[in-house]
């Protein structure tokens, strides 16, 4: 199963929220949908769920127009909501039935999930009597009811403690194993990195990346190395490098790094072995010299900052330079 968004545009009044949004998601893989607050994640998800009608563009499932209400789609909206004064099991059955399941199937599924999330004892209680965390679990359960083909989770981890987050992670892992198509948006990069094979990054309604996380990281790490010295701190190491290698063009190729002890260098202008020999010859005691592997936070910041610069009127070449210096 492949879900494809092609050039989706959506405006609210004069505010153009989504600009030609396009990305793909395959079943059996989880896609992390990343973006800053107000970047267009929830609007995109609402378009997928047919809650908002796009102004233009198309959403296809296996090259056919996607009709979410005709497929079992588990959905956890960012704005959580269920009936606080209705019995839990009853409303879970109701949501299961609305999604197309039979009453018996929905009841069986709801009871199984309640047991899995250790909430069976509350089945006949009203939602309002549960703690906030347990209410969150009930809302997650409704997204997994009746074995949906596709699961869309908007900020699913917010409000979950580590124990419940672990239960939830297991549920997501199982869904991926069962070849479900999983999309989840989150600000918590750790969770995305843990599950997602693919990422889509959206900023100010523009898609910045859509693809395999490994490929994105590989692209970002190309020709970039981390260097750490045992006898010098970061500033001293930077000074030393400026003296030993003028061809290195440190102004261009020394990349920003939060780390206070190591440097990240773009070695596209020099072979790594040559560089290493020169560093050793300068009497730098190398503690660590390795291929640079960016974290998802690095990826996120890298592309968002570049996009910020572009949208603020700086041309693409300058933005790329500025991006490299800044990440």
């Amino acid at each position, binding site marked *: 199963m492949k879900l494809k968004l092609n050039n989706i545009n959506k405006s609210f009044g004069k505010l153009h929220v989504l600009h030609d949004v396009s990305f793909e998601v395959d079943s059996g893989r989880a896609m992390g949908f990343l973006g800053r607050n107000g970047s267009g994640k929830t609007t995109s998800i609402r378009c997928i769920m*047919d809650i908002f009608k796009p102004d233009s563009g198309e959403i296809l499932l296996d090259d056919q127009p996607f009709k*979410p209400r005709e497929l079992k*789609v588990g959905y956890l909206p960012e704005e959580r*909501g269920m009936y606080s004064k209705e019995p839990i099991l009853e409303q879970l059955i109701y949501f299961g039935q609305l*999604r197309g399941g039979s009453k018996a199937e929905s009841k069986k599924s709801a009871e199984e999930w309640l047991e899995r999330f250790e909430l069976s004892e509350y089945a006949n209680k009203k939602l309002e009597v549960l703690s906030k965390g347990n209410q969150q679990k009930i809302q997650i359960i409704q997204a997994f009811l009746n074995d949906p083909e596709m699961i869309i989770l908007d900020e699913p981890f917010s409000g979950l403690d580590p124990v419940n987050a672990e239960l939830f992670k297991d549920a997501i892992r199982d869904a991926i194993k069962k070849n479900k198509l999983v999309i989840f948006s989150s600000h918590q990069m750790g969770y995305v990195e843990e599950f997602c094979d693919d990422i889509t990054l959206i900023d100010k309604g523009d898609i910045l990346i859509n693809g395999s996380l490994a490929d994105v990281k590989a692209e970002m790490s190309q020709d970039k190395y981390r260097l750490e010295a045992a006898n010098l701190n970061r500033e001293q190491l930077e000074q030393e490098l400026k003296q030993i290698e003028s061809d290195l063009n440190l102004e261009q190729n020394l990349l920003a790094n939060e780390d206070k002890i190591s440097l990240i260098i773009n070695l596209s202008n020099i072979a790594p072995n040559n560089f290493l020999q020169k560093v050793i010859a300068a009497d730098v005691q190398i503690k660590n010299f390795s291929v640079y592997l960016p974290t998802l936070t690095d990826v996120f910041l890298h592309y968002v900052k570049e996009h910020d610069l572009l949208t603020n009127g700086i041309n693409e070449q300058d933005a790329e330079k500025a991006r490299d210096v800044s990440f």
Partner: protein
Amino acid sequence: MRNSGLVFSFEFKSILRKKSYLATTIVLCLIVIAAVIILSFLVNKEELSEDTDSDVLFTDEDVNDILSDGGYYTATDELKDFSLLKNIKQEFADEDSLKTALSNDEILFGVVFYSTSDFAFMVNGEQNPIAGAFIEQQLLNFNRTNYFEANNIDPELITGIYNVQVNATNIDISQKGIGNFVFAMIYTVLLYMLIILYGTTVSSSVAREKDNRTMELLIANTKADYLIIGKTLAAGLAGMLQILALIVTLLLSLKFSGQDIIDLIGGFIELNATTIITMVLFGLTGYISYLFIYAALGALVSKMEDVNYAVTPVMLIFIAAYLIAIYGMGNPHSLLLKVASYFPLTSVLTMPVRTILLNISPVEIMISAAIMLASIAIFSFLAIRIYRLGSLNYGNRMKFGKTLKMILRGEDS
């Protein structure tokens, strides 16, 4: 449509489960039972007092009780055969001694007869209107009897002449009886209560789903059309069940109170097939269309506290319809009632009132019904579109006019 049924079933069960619904139904039924008991008691009491009055006015004991504490003085011998004097406690020789005894509280009242047609009734502060009126009536009878005897007239003949009764009934062939007036009043009040109560229930229910963010989940799983239809019909049926419970309670209460229901209904209320069809058609369609409107207005707000503001305009229109219907009951031929019976938002109450009270031409009813049905189609369509548009607006309250413009521009689809 399967999902409409699911929404209907869930919402209906949810309303029935509410303690407030059960409590309201029980309280209303108890009020009906209490009203029937009180009415029944009043009717029985009236019948009892009518029976007593018609048989005997005063017994000998009553006369003794009324007159035994009084005294009299008569200045004329013509009253020597006036039998009433025997019942008065004490005779005085003159008016002054009677007044002295009265002022000393030896007697409670005094009567001074100046002639057969002139007497004074005296009390010392404590009024005694029964004794005074009784003596006056007896003296009048005494004089009449004497007059009849003196002129050889048979008293029964005279009584017979005066007891002849003429029964005059005013009939307006265009207007039905008083029973229909009462029936129209009950119909109007019940429908008014039903629409106000369940209209507010529906709009609150929609606003609550937005307030607690359930709406997005619902819209993601089913179409807005199915949601509003299921929700509106569920509230509609719950309301009708409550009214049915009241009617059944009323009929059972009347049965157990000993009142003859057939006489009560058949004797006073004149209902024909046209009237019944009009009541059902206008009542049902009007009720449902108002519920649709209330549901749509509930979708325009994001917070529960804003519901009242949103529904105020339509509530004012409906209150106007109610007032026109009430006014029309006293003036069923009025132009205002007639015009209102063609306007869809008011005809829900006014056309049935006209039909219950007057003999309306079926053509008039059909024209109004056609307007009503066409309006319902439009109201339902708009309500569904407003609901769809409003259901995901979590910001400030949407303005009705602006929302309509968006619908007309097709921004809701």
